[in-house]
């Protein structure tokens, strides 16, 4: 127990100092004034809702309702500067003088701006103008519009390729887990994933392991339809006040709120067609025969007879003849190719479909506003049981269950109710609540051999039986039936229909809710408090009923069931108080103090059963049952912070802050961690002396320095023993059975000095608005250094220690990069306008230090295989044995001896993408009646393993093109030989997979949509309002890449070691959608 490890002096000391500042920040109170007004769009004079009206230098603000009207109360009298901000419009300031207790009216007319960015962002201390921040914060802009107008169905659809510095590898399966990295990776042993908040509540974003190979994302339970805004806080310089665990960035999701005015009803309906257009590769069969026996066989290119590589017969002492293995062993006769996946007669690849029906209602008045929504999103993936299997089951009088016929499916039902109440002019209360039920059906589809894509992709290279071989077992190496006689229809090894009988389902039920209070006792003070919970109950279920599923093991058809349940419970609470003080006419000070607390708990129980009775499907029905469970473990963090901001003439903004954290996962000897922060933001173009060339409208320079951390695992600091049962034999010579006996074994020793990884980061950058605000440029450079990095320092196995790779805080890493974004309005006329957003980033990292290796006295290195940690090289640097080849005999084919694999390993670069680029285009046509959105994105600077070919070329039936087609490139032939045979030196075989480690750069036509405003004649007939649209969209349309595998964006196997790869899996499907958005 680690009671009392917090030193009592700390919290009161910090807060006391903060309170003194706060008190000092006070100024004379007097009767407060009110300003009302209206915000409209220039040109149309249409009211603008959701515009933020701020009183500069104070903590008060207001938001416009439907009518565009606002009321700002609690304003200190005197000269007041108002600023109005709204996404998509140029911000505007006005000054007004107001008497004590008086009122004034100020109206704003706003012009459209190119920058589609939120100008007010959420920070740890509350909402702030973007210009006040010294660090870059990415916002997605108007998420509602994106969701309505582009085919975005998941949070990863929304985030991908939108923000510089954010790398997102989407899950390739329906519901699959995306991998999100912000500004690359910095941790070798801990998570590199950002943390997520939804309406101020820490949100579990991990993945669910299906029990086979596919990870499903907890992020799938975020409904894009409910999101108002997404902000990405990128690194320690920005995330300091989020504390321990924020070093990898923070993603803040704000859900929609009601707004005052008449009640709005928004109906949405969408239909989807989902197509698997992945370029599955042809498989080949080189038909030949044995030179000695004449028997038909599959030739391998590396041992096929050529004029310069003959076969040779040797005779042993007993007169038995055989072929000399150093020479050719097969005479090639003909070549065939076949693509089972594309063969319409047999393939399980069929278009899927999906639908969405949603309703949201929002409205209210100045006192109470509400947002209520409900959506049902159904999707069936592009997998369907082959018709021959349906017929076979029918003939056996086995009803084909829907979960077999469509094993890939998802249903997400979500409900949200958000309430905002202004209980008094000084107190607002916001209640946010969301419930999601998400069911997934998961096909066994990649890693294991009981896997759809494995049996489909890795076929024999020919269809049916070649002429003349029907009576002799279908020729070559083909096994035409499964082990139990079920016909395979040219699939490999297992019948797809029986694989589809493996029923896998996950069920997530999740409630996320928070209550936020905002109290403004004075015009100079705002106090904000939030408490919330995120509860997720997760069930994963896998079932093969009696006699179902492929007979891949002796127990496979006895009936087996797995039922895993876990629960995540997060509690978040935070309070913050900000006080402002106009110390001088030209200087405003803001002091913030705050505290937050998170408690992340989870538990699980795993149960499984074997041998089910007919019809049995539960663990309780199984003859043999086993299980394990874990009581809740918790990760608790208590943080306190203080921040001082100075705004000088509302153009230079300086911030200094510090946060201290205590965490339940720290070691006994580690008390607390302190994270400091400073930043500056300067609107240089607002200076009077600044030259104002006509093309430059605004220039802002900014810089920030800050620190934050990543905590170790919940129990990593503790001495642990594991419990179980062991069968102990009776100590008698006649007994053959044992007795299950309770057992203990040491699991890990205590690590009293364990502390968080600490990252510090500085960033420098700036923004410029040019050409009458038609062009906006944004650039940031960052450098992030991580100290006390937790390294798994290998302990010699011969020490017999209970933990052979304990975590020790001895490492240091560094990451740096450039981020760039440009928004431009290239053309703007009534008939046609064209806006474009270009984002890009280039990311680098390296291991700086891993301590000294006691064995050599030199800097330590980690790993001896493909992924290594070596000072001076990138994290998870990739190493392979290289190889060379030469067609020495000039026969056009490579034989084994013509490929030489080096015994030494060589560095081969990064495995995760370094260069991220996206181009988003928007075209408005016909008086803005039609808008076309298009997005292309690029990832590159890395290589990944072409897992499909690496496997298909080197396991039976060796039917990939590299080993079969004589016309194929020698480069590919050499890759297969280097992998399968390698080079033998002194009896040791040296092989390499580097021939399949391929450049993974690609361009993808990610999304396109056409948004058509329904004409008045239609909206009047259905009594809808303006803004109702019909949208035609498509997603993942095409990929341009030289990558030789299935999909360079696959992230199967992505783990903490960042081992991105694709392996016998599929790529992203293509979506075609039509969506109707009706507004009432």
């Amino acid at each position, binding site marked *: 127990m*680690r009671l009392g490890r*917090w030193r*009592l002096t700390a919290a009161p000391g910090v*807060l006391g100092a*903060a*309170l003194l500042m*706060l008190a000092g920040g006070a100024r004379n*109170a007097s009767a407060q004034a009110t300003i009302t007004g209206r915000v409209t769009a220039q040109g149309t004079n249409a009211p603008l809702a959701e515009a933020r009206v701020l009183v500069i230098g104070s903590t008060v603000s207001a938001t416009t309702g439907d009518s565009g009207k606002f009321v700002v109360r609690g304003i200190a009298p005197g000269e007041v500067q108002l600023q109005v901000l709204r996404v998509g419009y140029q911000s505007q300031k006005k000054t007004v003088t107001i008497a004590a207790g008086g009122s004034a009216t100020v109206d704003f007319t706003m012009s459209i701006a190119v920058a589609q960015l939120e100008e007010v962002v959420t920070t740890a201390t509350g909402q702030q103008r973007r210009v006040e921040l010294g660090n870059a914060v990415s916002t997605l802009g108007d998420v509602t519009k994106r969701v309505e107008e582009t085919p975005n169905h998941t949070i990863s659809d929304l985030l991908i390729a939108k923000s510089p510095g954010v790398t997102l590898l989407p899950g390739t399966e329906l519901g699959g887990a995306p991998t999100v990295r912000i500004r690359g990776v910095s941790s070798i042993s801990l998570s590199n994933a950002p943390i997520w908040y939804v309406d101020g509540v820490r949100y579990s974003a991990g993945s669910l392991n299906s029990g086979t190979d596919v990870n499903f994302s907890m992020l799938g339970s975020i409904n894009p339809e409910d999101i108002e805004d997404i902000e990405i806080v990128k690194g320690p310089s920005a995330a300091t006040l989020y504390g321990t665990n924020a070093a990898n960035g923070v993603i803040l999701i704000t859900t929609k709120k009601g707004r005052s005015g008449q009640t709005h009803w928004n109906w949405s309906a969408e239909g989807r067609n989902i197509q698997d257009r992945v370029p599955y590769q042809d498989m080949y069969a080189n038909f030949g025969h044995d030179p000695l026996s004449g028997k038909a*066989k*599959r030739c391998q290119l590396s041992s096929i007879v050529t004029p310069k590589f003959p076969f040779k017969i040797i005779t042993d002492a007993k007169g038995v003849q055989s072929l000399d293995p150093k020479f050719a*062993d097969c005479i090639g006769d003909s070549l065939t190719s076949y693509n089972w996946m594309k063969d319409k007669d047999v393939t399980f690849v069929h278009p899927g479909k999906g639908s969405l029906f949603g309703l949201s209602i929002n409205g209210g008045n100045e006192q109470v506003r509400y947002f209520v929504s409900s959506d049902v999103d159904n999707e069936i993936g592009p997998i369907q049981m082959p018709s021959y299997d349906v017929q076979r089951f029918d003939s056996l009088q086995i009803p084909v269950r829907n979960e077999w016929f469509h094993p890939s499916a998802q249903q997400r039902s979500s409900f949200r109710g958000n309430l905002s109440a202004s209980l008094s002019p000084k107190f607002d209360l916001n209640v946010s609540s969301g419930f999601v039920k998400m069911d997934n059906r998961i096909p066994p589809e990649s890693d294991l*051999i009981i896997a759809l894509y494995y049996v489909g992709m890795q076929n024999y290279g020919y269809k049916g039986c070649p002429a003349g071989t029907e009576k002799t077992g279908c020729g070559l190496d083909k096994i035409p039936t499964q082990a*139990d006689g079920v016909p395979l229809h040219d699939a490999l*090894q297992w019948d797809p229909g029986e694989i589809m009988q493996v029923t896998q389902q996950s069920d997530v039920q999740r409630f996320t809710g928070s209550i936020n209070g905002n109290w403004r*006792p*004075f015009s100079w003070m705002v106090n904000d408090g939030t408490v919330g919970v995120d509860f997720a109950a997760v069930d994963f279920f896998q079932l093969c009923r009696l006699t179902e599923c492929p007979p891949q093991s*002796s127990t496979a058809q006895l009936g087996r069931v797995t039922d895993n349940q876990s629960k995540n419970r997060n509690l978040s609470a935070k309070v913050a108080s900000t*006080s402002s003080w106009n110390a001088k006419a030209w200087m405003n000070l803001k002091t913030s103090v705050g*505290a937050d607390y998170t*408690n992340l708990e989870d538990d699980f129980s795993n149960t499984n059963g074997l041998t089910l009775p007919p019809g049995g499907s539960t663990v309780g029905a199984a003859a043999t049952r*086993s299980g394990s469970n874990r009581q809740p*473990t*918790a990760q608790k963090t208590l943080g306190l912070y203080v921040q001082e901001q100075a705004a000088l003439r509302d153009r230079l903004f300086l911030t200094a802050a510090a946060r201290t954290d205590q965490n*339940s996962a720290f070691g006994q000897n580690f008390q607390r961690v302190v994270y400091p922060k400073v930043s500056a933001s300067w609107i240089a173009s607002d200076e009077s002396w600044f030259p104002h060339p006509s093309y430059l409208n605004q220039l802002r320079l900014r810089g920030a320095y800050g620190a934050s951390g990543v905590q170790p695992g919940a129990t990593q600091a*503790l*001495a642990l*023993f594991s*419990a179980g*049962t062991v*069968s102990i034999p009776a100590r*008698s*010579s006649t*007994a053959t059975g*044992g007795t*299950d*006996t309770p057992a*203990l*074994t*040491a699991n890990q020793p*205590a690590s009293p000095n364990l502390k968080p990884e600490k990252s510090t980061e500085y960033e420098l950058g700036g923004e410029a608005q040019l050409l009458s605000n038609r062009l906006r440029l944004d650039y940031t450079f960052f450098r992030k250094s991580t100290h006390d990095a937790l390294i798994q320092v290998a*302990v*010699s196995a*011969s*020490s*017999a*220690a*209970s933990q052979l790779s304990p975590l020790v805080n001895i490492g240091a890493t560094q990451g740096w990069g450039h981020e760039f974004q440009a928004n431009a309005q290239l053309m703007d006329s009534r008939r046609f306008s064209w806006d474009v957003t270009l984002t890009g980033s280039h990311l680098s990292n390296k291991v700086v230090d891993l301590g000294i*290796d006691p064995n050599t006295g030199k800097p330590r290195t980690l790993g*001896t*295989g493909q992924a290594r940690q070596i000072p001076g090289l990138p994290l998870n640097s990739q190493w392979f044995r290289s190889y060379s080849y030469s067609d020495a005999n000039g026969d056009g084919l490579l034989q*084994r001896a013509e490929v030489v694999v080096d015994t030494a390993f060589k560095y081969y670069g990064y495995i995760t993408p370094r260069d991220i680029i996206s181009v988003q285009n928007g075209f408005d046509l016909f008086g803005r009646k039609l808008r076309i959105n298009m997005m292309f994105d690029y990832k590159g600077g890395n290589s990944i393993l072409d897992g499909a070919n690496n496997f298909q070329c080197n396991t*039976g*039936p*060796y039917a990939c093109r590299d080993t079969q087609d004589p016309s194929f490139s020698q480069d590919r032939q050499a890759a297969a030989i280097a992998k*399968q045979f390698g080079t*033998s030196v002194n*009896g*040791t*075989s*040296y092989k390499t997979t580097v021939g399949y480690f391929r450049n993974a750069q690609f361009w993808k036509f990610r999304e396109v949509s056409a948004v058509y405003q329904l004409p008045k004649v239609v909206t009047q007939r259905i009594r809808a309002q303006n803004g109702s649209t019909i949208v035609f969209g498509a997603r993942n349309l095409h990929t341009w890449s030289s990558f030789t595998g299935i999909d360079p964006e696959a992230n199967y196997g992505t783990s903490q070691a960042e081992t991105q790869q694709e392996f016998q899996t599929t790529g992203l499907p293509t979506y075609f959608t039509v969506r109707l958005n009706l507004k009432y």
Partner: protein
Amino acid sequence: MFSTMHRARWAAAVGAALVLPGCADFKNQLLQPQNPGIIDNSAVGSAAAAAALKVGAMGRIKVVYTSSETLWQEAGQVADEYQNADFQPDRNDVDQRTMATNSPYANYGSVTQARGYIRDALAAEYKYEPTKTTDIGELWMALGFIELSLGENFCNGIPLGNNTNGVVDYSSPSFKPLTNNEVFDAAIAHLDSALTSVGSASDSASVFVRRAALVLKARLLVDKGQYAAAAALVPTSAVATNWQYLFTTSTASSSDDNGIWTLNNSVSRVTVGDSVMAYQGKTFTIANAIPFFSLNDPRVPVITGASVKLVAEDGLTPLYLQQIWKNRDDAVALASGIDARMIEAEAKLNANDIAGMMTILNAARATPPKLGGVLQPAAMPPLATPATQDAATSLFFREKAFWQFSRGFRLSDLRRLVRQYKRTQDKVFPSGQHYKGGTYGSDVNFPVPDGELVNPQFHGCIDRNA
């Protein structure tokens, strides 16, 4: 001034609200690790805990044959008991005897780590249950068994280090790599501790443990070439032929299954070995390999996968399934009376008493003991007495291979044929063209993997000799 003070009081009130959570008790409650499922040091200070640690340690020595890719299974692949039927091409290296040092093989880490669990349990037993000499003796026996397993299967150059509560002092002499012979000596010393602890107690448990220690010690003496001394330890009077110390498995847990059954009979990742392998339309002859499948000896009954509608994991390799352990919970012998008989027979062989050897072998064939928990082989006709010492050696090791199939003997025996009987590895181990491409290499043991290089006293195997 007044208003400033007023505001300050307000601010102080708000601040106090913030400070409250910082009060020590409340804060400690907030941060207290709430991990009720964990077991920490406070739970292991009792006699009951010592007993549980002992059970845990005995469970960990099953690592030689339970769970995937075990020592006995991979050793059986290096030898001729099994052949690779795995769909992962990287796993051919074991079967092909071409193992690089940068990958761990044969569960090296877990096998050597088991020593630590045994030592933890011994320390607890001596502290809390010092009078339970049989239990203490059994733990010493287990330690000797694990060290025997390391010495028989891995290269020369095996450190037998230690730690104190996870802290490792690499300067300790214990981290010096030992030759196989030195490892055998260490194991013998621990088996002597077992025998000393058990003493001459006559209760059935003590007798049981003593027999196991005697058989293992005798096996180690054979490894050292001390055949007569070995045989003297295990006469029939001390260890009856039908005696067995069994590894039993928990019927309640699928993670405690018989690993031999799992890898061969269930998931079909290995196939019982033979001297002929048909693969992809071609027939390969494997030199030196005993045709376990073709012979279908009563001691190693084998069926084809087709008979139970199973195919090898790779879908291509012919699948042959051993039938000694037909069920997931069938027990396997750690030591047995038949082991003792083989030790006696080998002593006769080395004493040039071929007739004496044949007497022992044929007696066993006439009255076969039960193998494992279940298989009762039928009686077999006697073998003819070989004419030469060389033929007798071949016959002896062939008989031994059937009696002790898949129990971690065969690789060591093939090594001894090279080391003690002066045959060359290519005349003993599977050799020639490998059915999955390439030719067999020349490895005769497992390397201690490169991961061990963090021990500054370790610089790789001293040698890879038999």
